[in-house]
């Protein structure tokens, strides 16, 4: 939690993943990954979304703004992904084996969720990755069930649970891109 002093009042800005709900993380993720805005605008939007008073935002010097962004991003992010979460008495698991690995059919669903562009990508990802232990694979991959789960997760989970999965997902996408570029390069060399 950041403490910002302004006119002898202290504003508390939640910045660590555990302090943000999954729903808030959805919104911040959406702002940060929005096309067509510069980073300064994006961070102002994030701070406004987290209800930083205008009196603070309007009077920030360039130096203070940079310090605020740096402090906002200065937190420890766990590298470990959660294997299990309990929401409303139901148990959901993201993997059963020793180590987490994305499942091909989940990746396919995540790609479909990405196309929704509804500002809730992280919660869709969490709803896809966490399986209700009492349901079958077919039930787990049913979109109406995923939608219900995403809504529940938004209310009850935090960014702390979602962020490590998002990091892995982005890393996977970068590696896919790298792989595809190498394939194109090899193809060009072969011709």
């Amino acid at each position: 939690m950041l403490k910002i002093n302004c006119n002898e009042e202290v504003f508390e800005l939640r910045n660590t993943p555990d302090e943000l709900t999954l729903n808030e993380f959805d919104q911040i993720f959406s702002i940060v990954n929005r096309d067509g805005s510069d980073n300064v605008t994006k961070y102002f939007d994030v701070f406004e979304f987290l209800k930083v008073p205008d009196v603070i935002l309007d009077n920030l010097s360039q130096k203070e703004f940079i310090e605020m962004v740096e402090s906002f991003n200065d937190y420890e992010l766990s590298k470990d992904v959660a294997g299990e979460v309990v929401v409303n008495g139901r148990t959901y698991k993201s993997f059963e084996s020793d180590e987490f690995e994305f499942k091909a059919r989940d990746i396919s669903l995540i790609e479909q969720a990405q196309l929704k562009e509804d500002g809730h990508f992280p919660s869709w990802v969490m709803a896809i990755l966490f399986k209700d232990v009492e349901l079958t694979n077919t039930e787990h991959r049913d979109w109406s069930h995923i939608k219900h789960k995403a809504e529940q997760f938004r209310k009850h989970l935090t960014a702390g649970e979602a962020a490590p999965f998002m990091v892995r997902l982005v890393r996977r996408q970068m590696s896919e891109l790298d792989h595809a570029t190498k394939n194109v390069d090899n193809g060009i060399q072969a011709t």
Partner: protein
Amino acid sequence: MEFKQLSWFDCTVGQFQDVQDIISQTNITPTDFVLEVGDVFFDLDEDMTDSELRKLKQSISFITKPIICKLNTQNLKSFNKLSIAKFIDLDVLLVSNSFIDALPKVVKLLYDFDDVEDVKLTDVYKAFEDYIKYRSDVYKKYPNLFDTNDDEEEDYDDEEEEEEETKPLDPGSVWMRTIFAITQGDITKYTHVMGLPHILVFNWVSLSESLKTSKQTQIQ
């Protein structure tokens, strides 16, 4: 799960059609595409992992490559010896079907197969390609019989708009009219004419057309 590296030589005609159907889908995500194509060739595990997905992707990468294979002449009918009936059947199939849908139907006629679904694609694909080229060459050889001018539409003017509204004849009816003209409407000649080699029929009709044209020139 392990996936062996596949090539077009491992693909049947039925699988080729399934793959082409998947390729033609527009609202499909990259991973869905790999899984659907993978499903055509393998019994995929529901819980397949990301690393297995990579292996699968590699295994089916052949679908991005051109189909290069030799002509299988076993049981293949010589194109230039096809009867006019067979030529018409093939022509109607090629005109009324997409390239992919026409493939099994044309191959069935060219090789006299009962069922072509499980036939290896590389055993028949070259014949299909060659036949399309052969048909096109035949069309070019008889310009007075086949109108191959693709620019015709551009010549349409406003007066011809009414004609556009009339439904064009299906390819089968066009050929029926041709056969009717050759037999001069005599149904007793139909079976005989349909069994004649198509080249002979085209030569005959072409000659008849030329004679008609030269007669008209003389009268003028």
